[in-house]
């Protein structure tokens, strides 16, 4: 079966598709839409930003994504907008483009189409764009301008109601499962969890791909052949967000950008962490489940979800099993996922109103960076005594991991400065981190221990964390 998507309202039907050919290469070298640029081919610069529209109920949800690490079958049943789509029939620039052309938003111009698409997304109400302009373009790098005019143009751009009715109608007919084979490599794009379970039973070695924000690089940088692949993006039931009085349950296929508001409602610290995961394009593709399932020691989601008491549900033809999230991570690159299983959902209990929570991501750059250390703490204090303590770290071990000695040092102790000092010392015995490109072992240990002091001081009303002190 073919991959079918709409580009500027026109159906594009591709019969034989390399399942790991990128959307960017197809746009540039097959369709000759060269306005979309390759800056890095790894989802970090945003020069390749396009808008992808998904049918969600009766509505078309537009999202800015990095086309360099989106594979062609992921477009099946979707609509696509590139910078070439923005000119009106008379060839005039839209108001956003007009502003950017006049106010110095472009110098070399190479990153410009990517910024235009990110900001255009904001004007048409694309997902994730309720954030300030700086956040909407945090995944777009510009090396020339210093960003001032671009931010100004983004802030000046008026919302614009795009009429998507025809696209919605056309997409309705394209929402079936898809699959194909190309040079001996098979691919599947199922539409239900049952279908996925069956496919995994038949193809236990198949590579599951949700947002491709990690796997994409295996292809563009690792030059790997991924064999049989199953694309998860079309399974609506895996993309469900359930908010109840006692928990937030996120389907494994929920994109970080879509989960952002609900996670922020669970706790503002969690919302702030999500804001700093990748750029918007990455959060618009990357899923909470994928961030957990791939078992990365530096994924930003898991430490916080572990500290908050998250539970993971796995599913297969044989049924479901649920485990505390921390138990899923067995060792470096090794997770407790059996052949035929997939991550179905993550349940995060709603923290009690008096819980003391700190989630801190430390990285060279605040936005769109990978953490050197990511620490998450949840304490419950009764009558001045710490009754529950969950402490988890990323970047400190081969997996996201709880800090058992630190937790022990906190439990049952008075909520007092001395307790945190002792716990900070205990934390140093919990981890033996690596020295790598993101930081030395010594820095990681010291900064991680200092987060306990950050937690204590903040509880005493002391200003900590520079991002919280900007208006000084």
């Amino acid at each position, binding site marked *: 079966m073919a991959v079918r998507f709409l580009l500027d309202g026109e159906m594009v039907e591709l019969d034989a598709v390399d399942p790991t050919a990128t959307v960017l290469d197809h746009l540039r070298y097959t369709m000759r839409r060269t306005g979309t640029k390759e800056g890095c081919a790894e989802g970090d610069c945003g020069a390749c930003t396009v808008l992808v529209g998904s049918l969600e109920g009766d509505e078309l949800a537009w999202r800015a994504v990095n086309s360099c690490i989106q594979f062609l079958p992921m477009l099946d049943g979707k609509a696509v907008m590139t910078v070439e789509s923005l000119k009106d029939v008379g060839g005039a620039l839209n108001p956003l483009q007009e502003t950017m052309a006049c106010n110095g938003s472009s110098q070399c111009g190479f990153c410009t*189409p990517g910024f235009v698409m990110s900001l255009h997304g904001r004007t048409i109400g694309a997902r994730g764009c309720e954030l300030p302009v700086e956040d909407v373009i945090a995944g777009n790098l510009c090396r020339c301008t210093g960003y001032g005019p671009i931010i100004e143009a983004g802030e000046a751009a008026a919302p614009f109601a795009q009429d998507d009715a025809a696209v919605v109608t056309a997409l309705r007919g394209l929402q079936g499962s898809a699959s194909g084979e190309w040079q001996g490599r098979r691919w599947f794009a199922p539409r239900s969890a049952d279908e996925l379970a069956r496919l995994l039973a038949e193809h236990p070695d198949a590579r599951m791909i949700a947002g491709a924000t990690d796997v994409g690089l295996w292809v563009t940088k690792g030059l790997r052949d991924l064999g049989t692949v199953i694309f998860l993006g079309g399974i609506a039931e895996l993309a469900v967000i359930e908010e109840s009085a006692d928990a937030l349950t996120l389907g494994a296929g929920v994109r970080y950008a879509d989960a952002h508001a609900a996670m922020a409602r669970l706790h503002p610290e969690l919302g702030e962490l999500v804001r700093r995961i990748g750029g918007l394009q990455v959060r618009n593709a990357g899923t909470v489940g994928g961030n957990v399932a791939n078992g990365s020691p530096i994924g930003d989601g898991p430490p916080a979800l572990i500290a908050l008491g998250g539970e993971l549900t796995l599913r297969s033809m044989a049924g479901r099993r649920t485990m505390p999230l921390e138990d899923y991570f067995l060792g470096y690159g090794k997770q407790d996922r059996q052949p035929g299983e997939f991550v179905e959902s993550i349940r995060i209990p709603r923290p009690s109103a008096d819980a003391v929570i700190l989630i801190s991501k430390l990285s060279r750059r605040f936005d769109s960076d990978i953490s050197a250390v990511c620490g998450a703490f949840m304490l419950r204090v009764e009558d001045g005594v710490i009754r529950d303590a969950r402490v988890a770290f990323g970047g400190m071990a081969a997996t996201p991991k709880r800090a058992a000695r630190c937790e022990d040092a906190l439990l049952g102790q008075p909520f007092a400065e001395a307790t945190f000092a002792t716990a900070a010392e205990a934390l140093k015995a919990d981890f033996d981190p690596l020295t790598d490109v993101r930081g030395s072992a010594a820095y990681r240990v010291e900064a991680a221990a200092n987060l306990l002091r950050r937690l204590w001081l903040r509880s005493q009303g002391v200003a900590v964390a520079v991002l919280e002190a900007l208006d000084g």
Partner: protein
Amino acid sequence: MAERDPAWKVLPKPSHPHDSARLHVAGEARYADDLTEPADMLHLAFGQSSEARARIVSMDLSKVLASPGVVAVYTAADIPGANDVSPFAGDDRLLADGEVLCHGQAVFLVAATSQRAARIAARLGQIEYEPLPAAVTVAQAQAAGSHIEPAQRMARGDAAAALAASPHRLSGRFAMGGQDHFYLEGQVSVATPGEDGQVHVLCSTQHPSEVQHLVAHMLHVSSADVTVEVRRMGGAFGGKETQAALFAAAAALVASKTGRPAKFRCDRDDDMVMTGKRHPFEIAYQVGFDDAGHLLALSLHLASACGATVDLSPAINDRAMFHSDNCYFLPDVEVVSERLKTNTVSATAFRGFGGPQGMLAIERVIDDVAMALGLDPLDVRVANLYGPGRETTPYAMTVADNVAPQIIARLRQTARYDERARAVEAFNAANPVLKKGIALTPVKFGISFTTTHLNQAGALVHVYADGSIQVNHGGTEMGQGLYTKVARVVADVFAVPMETIRITATRTDKVPNTSATAASSGADLNGMAAHNAAMTIRDRLTTFLARTYGLEEGAVHFTPGGVIVGAETLDFGQVARKAHIGRISLSSTGYYATPGIEYDRSVFKGRPFYYFAYGAAVSEVVIDTLTGEHKVLAVDIIHDVGRSLNPVIDKGQIEGGFIQGQGWLTTEELVWDGKGRLLTHSPATYKIPTASDRPKHFTVTLWDGENVEPTINRSKAVGEPPFMLAISVFSALNRAVAATMPDKRALPPLDAPCTPEHILKAIAAHKAAV
């Protein structure tokens, strides 16, 4: 000279947007990779060295050749002419010949039917190496006595004696990292074979003439057989001055060998591994000073890691020396510059060209002196500025255009420096975890290539019989708005609207023997050359019209309302048509060479610079003393661009330059492992500033002045100088770290870039220091 042209005095100078801005936002501006590929196009990739330094014992490339899609594989033995892609020293190989000098060096070249096929095949080479001793750090190179050239010395007076006689002495050392250019468009070249051995190379380069010459020598053809063209680059910043030649030569070699067009579009990670970066420096100093902070003696040692080959390192390190005075008079001074040869990718030109490193060194010295004396560093800066009776640089040039004192005084007042410095102190007293710092630092940057003969440019202007005008010159467009500025110069000569001017791609067959677009000189040199070309044509038209109408030449005026000829007014198109029929040549070249500059490198004395560009910035920062995180809170800048050719474009250069400089000193860290491998070879690990790193409060004011030298429109160069305004961020961060121990009269040992790790380390060391 433009200055003598009355048209310049009467015409208003509105800011035209960048000439390609409308194409940029529409995605219609074409870069080298955007042109339709011919069906038989070949795509290229290099097999790279896995060693920092080694002899190549054997190469088995059979698996490379057998890989799907591969059409040809080449090694050094296949190069018909010179195996050289260096700017002058002859030591940069297109393909390694017997030995490799750094990790990532090109060893063999694959041509395949797709980029992916070429990249896959390039990883299949089986090369046997005999590793040789390698020096990958400054210390290792110093221990091994490995240099690209002898150390250079610039001195005045007797620094040692003056040190001995100084009431106070300090010594210190610190290190600053390099910087990747991270132009958004990676290196790319497309070579198309022509008839009779000719080749056309479309190349993203700042230096088409050098690419032309290198390709010609490499193919063993004449320069006249090679044409290099560049319409625009997607950013360059110095990274495409010499570094584009490798990819252009590879594409030209394949085109020449196979008779098929060949494109080298370099992958981002390969680009970051294989191309040169800003030089990292290690600084050591001894300074003597009095109670008021006047510098009496300075002995400064600059050591830079130049990488494996010479490239432009001599001139870059020279410029570091020339800027180690910045705005300050140094009575007795000795600057020694050590240029180390390391087995890492050859360091190269990057915005500022050594200037930032030299300037950071002296600003650090000033901060050190101020801390030791317990004075506000700004007062120490002001006390040491060049001024009447103390206006000669260590290289014996008179600072004749010194506006630094006025700019600093103005900024001090408009940015409320003193009031804010007190507020910072109060904040720090009240906050145990967060500490703020504020600093005002100035910039004085010398304008001209220090290699004097490079200070020349050519242009070509055609007026067509319909009155439309084509402009061409040797400068290249990398986003800095050069084409727009030069077009405006020509439009003003004829008093025609900008729309009349068609700007055309830079090509070696239009203007020959050009210098790189570098050293901030693009508009100064090419603007003047284009002005001269246009004036030649205008003078011919004036003469022709006066003769035709029987008037004095003084009765002919080119005005925005048309060409006034006595009582008649003609539009410019009519004039062009009449002149064509009257058999007047409507095409001219123009040429310009910067006057008055001359210096003797053997003694580091003379006038290397035509003039200086100035500026100053106040930066306020906050650090978190628990994690080492920081934020730049507020920046105010006053910068001197002379009489601006285009205020919007100039402001863009200032803001962009500042943020790039902020990145160099804060988030951008190059990490090499012990084997000379670059670990930060992608934007996932190498972090340039994002939108939120731009300070929320950020003001830029253009200094209201004009160049004392008769440059085009009395403007000043703007490409590089603003980069160094970001030194104020480093200085402010130092003060914030120092605030962790407010009573300690010492500068914390903070290295650049100021990553969270470096800041935390500096805090610990500062607290521990006695």
